[in-house]
């Protein structure tokens, strides 16, 4: 087991390295001189030369790459080209809202999708199943921002149940915090409910065909007992995987949702950085999200290993 864990953890390193290389390449090899972009069109040749010197842009590309990787390894992500603040500080400032939104979304998605998937599997082929499946295709075909705007329109504007937009940290009271988080959470959770419910259904149906389910039924286990004690337990591994995948997929949804609901999180930070061409911030946020992706995948892999000893080889 230990060998398996070590091997998997080590296998994440080349992926992270590749992510860094790709992010570096995207920002350096794309058309346009970073110095010109940063200094603006009115900069003089000397100013550009100074800037290239100070940013190390005149050194060989490979050397630049390794210098940059060294900085990252020490936790130094540089300073924002726009505000001059440390990138780490900017990111930490915006982390709270994003974490809050992601956590509530994934909790809601799992809480709704698990029963839906189980019900659909139970009623396989009947109208309830079809309804859930149709809803599921709909759920990931409607853009999150459309769901968001429709919800704002109905629940904030016409019914007046929630504030239209904005975010208040938990420190300003649970009411202010929660009331502003409800709509974005529900809007963002739609595609993940759809995705998770679908996977739960498929896997429960698959497990229900196994011999041990027939055995459980034959020995007089109730349908409910069969489902919770046998079917769900054995369908757990793929379900855990898809929850992991959903968390990694949340990231793109978060960017959009924060923008619709005016939430000052990491998604908004990256958008602001893109509009201002603040490359150091873009690099850092992309690296952060990619690292989260790699680690969630790692966690899912390790969970697989715990659940199913065959995978350890």
């Amino acid at each position, binding site marked *: 087991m230990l060998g398996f864990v070590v091997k998997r953890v080590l296998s994440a390193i080349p992926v992270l390295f590749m992510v860094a290389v790709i992010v570096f390449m995207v920002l350096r090899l794309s058309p346009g001189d970073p110095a010109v972009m940063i200094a603006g069109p009115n900069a003089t040749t000397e100013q550009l030369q100074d800037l290239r010197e100070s940013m190390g842009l005149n050194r060989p590309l490979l050397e630049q790459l390794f210098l940059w990787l060294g900085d990252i390894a020490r936790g130094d992500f540089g300073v924002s080209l726009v505000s001059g603040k440390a990138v780490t500080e900017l990111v930490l400032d915006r982390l709270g809202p994003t974490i809050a939104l992601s956590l509530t979304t994934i909790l809601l998605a799992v809480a709704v999708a698990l029963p839906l998937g189980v019900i659909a599997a139970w009623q396989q082929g009947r109208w309830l199943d079809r309804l859930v499946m149709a809803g599921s295709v709909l759920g990931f075909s409607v853009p999150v*921002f459309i769901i968001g705007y429709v919800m704002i329109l109905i629940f904030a504007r016409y019914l007046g149940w929630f504030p239209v937009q904005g975010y208040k940290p938990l420190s300003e009271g649970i009411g202010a915090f929660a009331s502003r988080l409800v709509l974005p959470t529900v809007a963002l959770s739609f595609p993940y409910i759809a995705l998770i419910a679908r996977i739960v259904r498929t896997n429960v149906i698959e497990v229900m065909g196994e011999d041990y389910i027939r055995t459980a039924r034959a020995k007089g286990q109730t349908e409910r007992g069969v489902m919770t004690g046998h079917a769900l337990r054995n369908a757990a591994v793929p379900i855990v995987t898809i929850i992991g995948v959903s968390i990694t997929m949340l990231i793109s949804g978060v960017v*959009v949702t924060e923008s619709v609901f005016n939430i000052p999180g990491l998604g908004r930070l990256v958008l602001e950085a893109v509009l201002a061409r603040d490359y150091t911030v873009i690099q850092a946020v992309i690296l952060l999200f990619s690292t989260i992706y790699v680690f969630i995948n790692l966690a899912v892999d390790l969970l697989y290993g715990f659940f199913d000893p065959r995978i350890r080889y």
Partner: protein
Amino acid sequence: MTSDTAPSKPAQTELDLPDMAEARNDSGVAAMIRAILSSWPARISAAVVVLIVAMAILAPFLGTVDPVQLDPSQRLQGSSAAHWLGTDSYGRDVYSRVVYGARISLAVGAGTVVIAVAAGIFFGVLTGYFRWADIIVMRFMDGLMAIPGILLAIALVAISGATLTTVLIAISIPEIPRVARMVRSVIMGVRSEPYVEAASVLGTGALKMVWRHMLPNTVAPLLVQGTYIFASAIMTESILSFLGAGVPPETPSWGNMMADGRVYFLVKPELILYPGVMVSLTVLSVNMLGDVLRDRLDPRMAKRL
């Protein structure tokens, strides 16, 4: 293949030849279309897709006016005989923009499929057939997969400038690793098949081997994957444009319309809802067709998802 041929089949096994010939003919496009259209949701989705394609092609003949023409005196009008769905904040005709928007969305969808599938086949063959390339290229693909597609696309568009081409490339790049992985796994799977080994013994060259004996196995899964990529590309384009990192702002695309409508959302929500419904309808229909194709062409995958 109707009901009258089916019962006679077991009785006359020796006379199966004409039947098989027919089956071979049937394995082509006609059979696929028949398979796709075998259920009502699939028929409706196919009809919607056909309608949207027709709308895109016939856009100039559908009672539209110039979708980019500004008319500041006619800002934010309601529906009228002159402007069927009213006008936006620049006085442009919303109906015409919705109709012309289909062109951008379909072009982005199709373009992305072509780029992603071509690049995916290239890297998939490279890594599946030539083992020396496998480690480096696949690590690279793993890295690419780890980067959130939307963020990568936003960054690419922001850096290289917002044109239809950069948007296409930016949307395609994050899709490549999945195609490459699939092609690679198919190629690796057939490497040890007897017919591949036989061809190898006969001295078949690498190119011919890949083209004649290996790639045909990828057609069915690629068709399924391509359909999903088409849908997801349309979705991604609308998200990118909505966030202001998409096709040039004056282009009449559904995403741009929604971006323009954001400020006026509480006053005139239909500015977002009309294009929003079009995006949803298109993506939904294409996804449904993808599900049908997957169930028909790739039963193994259908079981998994």
